[in-house]
């Protein structure tokens, strides 16, 4: 599948936005300007981006505790995201959700989620709603390697398979669930193998190659849209940062991976890789990348300013938004 240059550049920009946004969130969290804990996906931008670029506005996603990238890839506004992460009234959830619970229903973002695996049944139901409505909207569920050991994974894939629902299960296998290496708690090396248990296609992609991810996702989305049912895609990737920003406040001096491993994966940076790829094909040059980087930085700074300028909710608002 040939991808248009505009789309490629848009994906490049998305990855940059995610990276820049999350670096800023990380630093603001370390600087104690953000309440609660945040999980960033730095190094994993290609999977969110490649999948997100395969979706249209009326398609939907469910996301995870590590969801900023997914949300940005589905069109989430940086300013309202940042304000939510700050816990401000101008945030997507008026400060009630925070980093782990950002949603934008107008964009089909059904929400990040603090419960590992919980998004899969919800995405499956969202796909079912499309069928009931007679629409060809597709829902993508993002989840981690750790979530693939939850019962919710199993029950969702089975349900989606028997009803041929328009849902794509996008697993980001970053090698760890919290501080536990995936291979010590997951009985198969490749999550994609589990597709066989549901008679659906399962595909492994290099999760740091945005083009590969996008091609796989576009195919799976098209299949779903045609009414041919779900696909499981496994993006092999890695998180450069801790499970949670400032994780050593949690686990002390404990180590769960080698520095060298992190360095190896840093060398496979999805952004640098795409730059190389675009350059080699003559689709873009360094000044394009720099321009994008600059624009994105400005956007992120504006988002931070927006968040800082946004008021805290009024305590009275505590009782609002529970019921319709």
């Amino acid at each position: 599948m040939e991808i248009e240059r505009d789309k490629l550049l848009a994906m490049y920009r998305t990855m940059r936005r995610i990276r820049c946004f999350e670096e800023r969130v990380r630093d603001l969290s370390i600087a104690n300007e953000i309440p609660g804990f945040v999980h960033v996906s730095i190094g994993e931008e290609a999977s969110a981006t490649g999948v997100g670029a395969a979706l249209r506005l009326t398609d939907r996603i469910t996301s995870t505790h590590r969801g900023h990238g997914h949300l940005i890839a589905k069109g989430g506004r940086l300013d309202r995201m940042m304000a939510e992460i700050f816990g401000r009234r101008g945030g997507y959830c008026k400060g009630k959700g925070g980093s782990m619970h950002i949603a934008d229903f107008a964009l089909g973002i059904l929400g990040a989620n603090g419960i590992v695996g919980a998004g899969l049944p919800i995405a499956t139901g969202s796909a079912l709603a499309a069928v009931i409505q007679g629409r060809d909207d597709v829902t993508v569920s993002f989840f981690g390697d750790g979530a693939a050991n939850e019962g919710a994974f199993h029950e969702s894939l089975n349900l989606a398979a028997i009803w041929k629902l328009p849902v794509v299960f996008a697993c980001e296998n970053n090698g760890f669930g919290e501080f536990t290496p995936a291979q010590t708690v997951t009985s198969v090396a490749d999550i994609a193998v589990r597709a066989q248990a549901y008679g659906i296609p399962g595909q492994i992609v290099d999760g740091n190659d945005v083009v590969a991810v996008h091609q796989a996702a576009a195919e799976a989305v098209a299949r779903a849209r045609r009414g041919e049912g779900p696909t499981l895609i496994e993006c092999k990737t890695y998180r450069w940062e801790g499970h949670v920003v400032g994780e050593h406040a949690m686990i002390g001096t404990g180590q769960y991976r080698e520095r060298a491993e992190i360095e190896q994966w840093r060398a496979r940076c999805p952004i640098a890789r795409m730059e190389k790829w675009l350059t080699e094909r003559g689709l873009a040059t360094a000044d394009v990348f720099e321009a994008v980087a600059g624009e994105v930085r400005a956007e992120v700074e504006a988002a931070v300013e927006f968040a800082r300028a946004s008021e805290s909710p009024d305590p009275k608002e505590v009782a609002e938004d529970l019921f319709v």
Partner: protein
Amino acid sequence: MALMTFIQAIQEALIEEMERDPLTFLMGEDVVLAVFGATRGLYERFGPMRVRNTPISEIGFVGAAVGAAMAGARPICEVEFASFFYCAFDQVCNQAAKLRYMSGGQAKIPVTFRAVYGSAGSAAAQHSETVYSQFLNVPGLKLAVPSDPADAKGLLKSAIRDDNPVIVFEHVGLGGLRGEVPEGEHLVALGQAAIKRPGTDITAIAIGAMVSRTLAVAEKLAADGISVEVVDPRTLMPLDEETLLASVAKTSRVIVADEAHLRGSAASEIAAIIAEKGFDLLDAPVKRVASLDVPVPFSPVLEQRAVAREAAIESAIRELLGA
């Protein structure tokens, strides 16, 4: 008025609401053949798109109902025996209940769950539980417990139309209970208690299957000159505290009858509310009538002893009245 059974009333509600809104659909284990009868014939009427037998996957299909509701459909999801909710608690309590609030009011989750609860004779502990109490402490859910056919229909219709998650608990023993149901559009608002029998000596607040039991006791005690006011909250969330307290204001004495195990029951919650907000109205302790704090036993004689029924209601009333 039409005379019909509890199950028929539920079936009417389902049919009327499914005809009213094409985005309403039904899912659950064996809803096609209909284990408890209420959904029987709906598959033939509404077809495979809108009446769906699910796998035995409570996380999966309960969660799918939540997701479908979030995405604009209006699912009615049956969970057979209410104890099976335990298999899907996360989707109900962490997702359906919380997502609207956490999203700052963006999510609209018009899902209705139906489940059969309570003891109906040697189904043993895993199929006899009264589990609504476990949801009381979870903000974001509405809980309805109809006690007769008219309320079953009216509450279920309101639940389906409600844009929030509602669980309707139907006592397994009430299915065949007959009663008058108003013809035509019949809605019962969520959050309105009903005085099922007016009285002056004592208030008996009763939930679900305890209502007909309490009415039977009230009838019996009337012969002894004891006048019992029987109040049915009908929904535990929202709870119509006003009607409950007004009755206590009238009688100054109250029992709360609930088939749940005593500890942590809805009876306890209601008793606590009365002790806090109606303390000055009371002439006697708030007495709870509930089941023993043991899993519901299989053997009929043990079950008879464990589960609160008429005898317990009667003796509680007599005790409070010194009669």
